[in-house]
């Protein structure tokens, strides 16, 4: 059988912490087998060698927050056949999207005495606001097993087993005790996208939503349940406003509680 040309993989970085692309290097057992099936053609964090595009599979980490990046992402799209965004920065704008909630000019004048030499956009936005994205893998950070699953699925031409339901289903499947019902600990699990394996509840901690909203999140009732546990409006604003702050409906829900504070 003639050896087929290996598909080419590229990893791109925008505004981010590098953690999601590190997940690829964290697949210690799969990394070398992976390179037998796929050509790591452009991955600056791992290699100084760059193979020219186009790339069969592009993994995009990070959000768009500078004019330069807003241009560059289009080049990445043009060079990519199948483009997967990885992590909360790329899928929701990341924690740096907290700037999207404030008037950046006021913010700057409060925080910084001297403006410097940097171009930045007023908002940090997800990749899909700029280009067509073929698949979004959620999480801050992504789950490395899910990353391997996405790459395996791509190589086999099948749909990845990445489900958009609640964290609760993973929590119950692993047999963890519900921290909200049994301990009265506020937990975002019911409105949060699965993928982490219900990590926080297993560590006796409420979910803080790092995988962003699940497919049909009822954040209004979630907030009402949190209020019954004694959580205040200002803390409700914060809990929705973290690593997926700019993802609907976390965005709108935090706005609702913010306006409640202002109404007194």
């Amino acid at each position, binding site marked *: 059988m003639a050896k087929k040309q290996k598909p080419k993989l590229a990893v791109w970085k925008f505004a981010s912490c590098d953690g999601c692309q590190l997940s690829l290097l964290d697949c210690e057992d*799969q990394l070398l*087998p*992976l390179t*037998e*099936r796929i050509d790591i053609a452009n991955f600056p964090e791992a290699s100084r060698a760059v193979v020219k595009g186009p790339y069969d599979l592009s993994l995009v980490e990070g959000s768009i927050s500078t004019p330069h990046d807003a241009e560059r992402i289009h080049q990445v799209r043009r060079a990519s056949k199948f483009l997967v965004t990885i992590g909360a920065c790329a899928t929701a704008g990341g924690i740096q999207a907290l700037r999207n909630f404030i008037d950046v000019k006021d913010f700057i004048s409060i925080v910084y005495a001297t403006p410097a030499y940097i171009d930045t956009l007023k908002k940090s936005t997800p990749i899909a606001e700029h280009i067509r994205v073929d698949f979004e893998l959620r999480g801050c950070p992504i789950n490395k097993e899910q990353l*391997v*699953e996405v*790459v*395996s*699925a791509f*190589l*086999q031409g*099948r749909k990845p*087993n990445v*489900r*958009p*339901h*609640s964290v*609760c*289903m993973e929590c*119950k*499947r*692993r*047999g*963890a*005790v*519900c921290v*909200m*019902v*049994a*301990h*009265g600990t506020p*937990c975002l*699990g*019911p*409105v949060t996208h699965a993928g982490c394996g219900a990590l926080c509840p297993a560590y*006796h901690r409420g979910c803080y939503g790092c995988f962003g909203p*699940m*497919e*049909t*999140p*009822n954040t209004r*009732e*979630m907030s*009402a*349940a949190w209020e019954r546990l004694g959580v205040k409006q200002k803390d409700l604003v914060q809990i929705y406003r973290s690593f997926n702050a700019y993802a609907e409906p976390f965005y709108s829900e935090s706005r609702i509680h913010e306006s409640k504070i202002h109404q007194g």
Partner: protein
Amino acid sequence: MNFPLNRAMMAPRGSVTETALKVGTLRMLEGASLDRLFGALSKRGYRLLGPAVREGAIVFDEINSAADLPAGWTDEQEGGTYRLKKRSDDALFGYAVGPHSWKKFLHPPAERLWQADRKGKTFEVTEEKPDTQKTAFIGVRSCDLHAIAIQDKVFLNGYYVDPLYKARREHAFIVAVNCGQAGGTCFCVSMGAGPKAAAGFDLALTEVCEPERHYFVVEAGTDLGAEILAELPGREVEGREKAAAEDTVASAAQQMGRYMDTTNIKELLYQNYAHPRWDTVAARCLTCANCTMVCPTCFCTTVEDVTDLQGEHAERWQKWDSCFTKDFSYIHGGSIRATSKARYRQWMTHKLATWFDQFGTSGCVGCGRCITWCPVAIDITEEVRAIRQAPQSPKSSPVGDKYGNS
């Protein structure tokens, strides 16, 4: 309602040996002798699974002796809350059901069905071997016995039998416990599913805690149960002891925290697909699927095919799924139950109505888990009550189709 356990479906457990005791016999076992029962089971190769305190709840886990049981603990349950509390006595079974049900062992949350390996231009499939480990379930409540009977119908009846479930079921020894107290969300009495274990067990215990004495009244439900019971240091039960055990169960029946009127419930729900109450409950529902995960009868699964990076090896995994997800009803073009209203209605109507058509019984055993473990305290008994209080007549109901998709 009656839930007969179809014992004929189960393979006979070896030859019936000559025992001194018969099925139905009651014996008195001192509390301190419970470990003798566990010893007798362990000696026969049974792995013991039973209640244990973990992470602030009573869950089912591997146990080694009576010392691992939640002595002196009870639970307080209401819609959306569960708290462990200390009892005034040292009862070993003085609580209602917790977040786990026995389906986690009989119908596990994730299991591999088969794997395949590439062999040249073709591939070779290896089916998963049934698990032949003998397991003893300690402390199965009547509601859960009924739930197991319901899952037996699902997995063992008809043409398609689940061989993995069947093997686990055949190798299970069931030590039931009659409830001495009911939880705040219990309604087994309404569903005819408790609190006394009527069938489907090998041994059934009734725990009696008196100021000076702690003992069990033990009933043999099968020959194997009787054989084991005969080995234990018990004696014939005295009238006073029998009465005390009966009182215990009777008081539990009086304590039900919830009630559901099941009169014509199937027709009631069929006639109320378009009831405004579905909108009310849908507004509250998180579609988080907790109710289906904790339900001891919910059996739905999905299958996921996974492949390795080399494309040499593939596996098919079965995982608990839920009708509260969008993918669950995904067919070409989209999810046919796109709204949470459609999903909640599907779940409740299936439990209480269509289940009869499908399996000949109710799908609800009144264990109350879906009420306790719903983060926003949606209460199935309350939902039935609301519909019953203001039912819509079949004619006025602008229903879409039989399945309620308007």
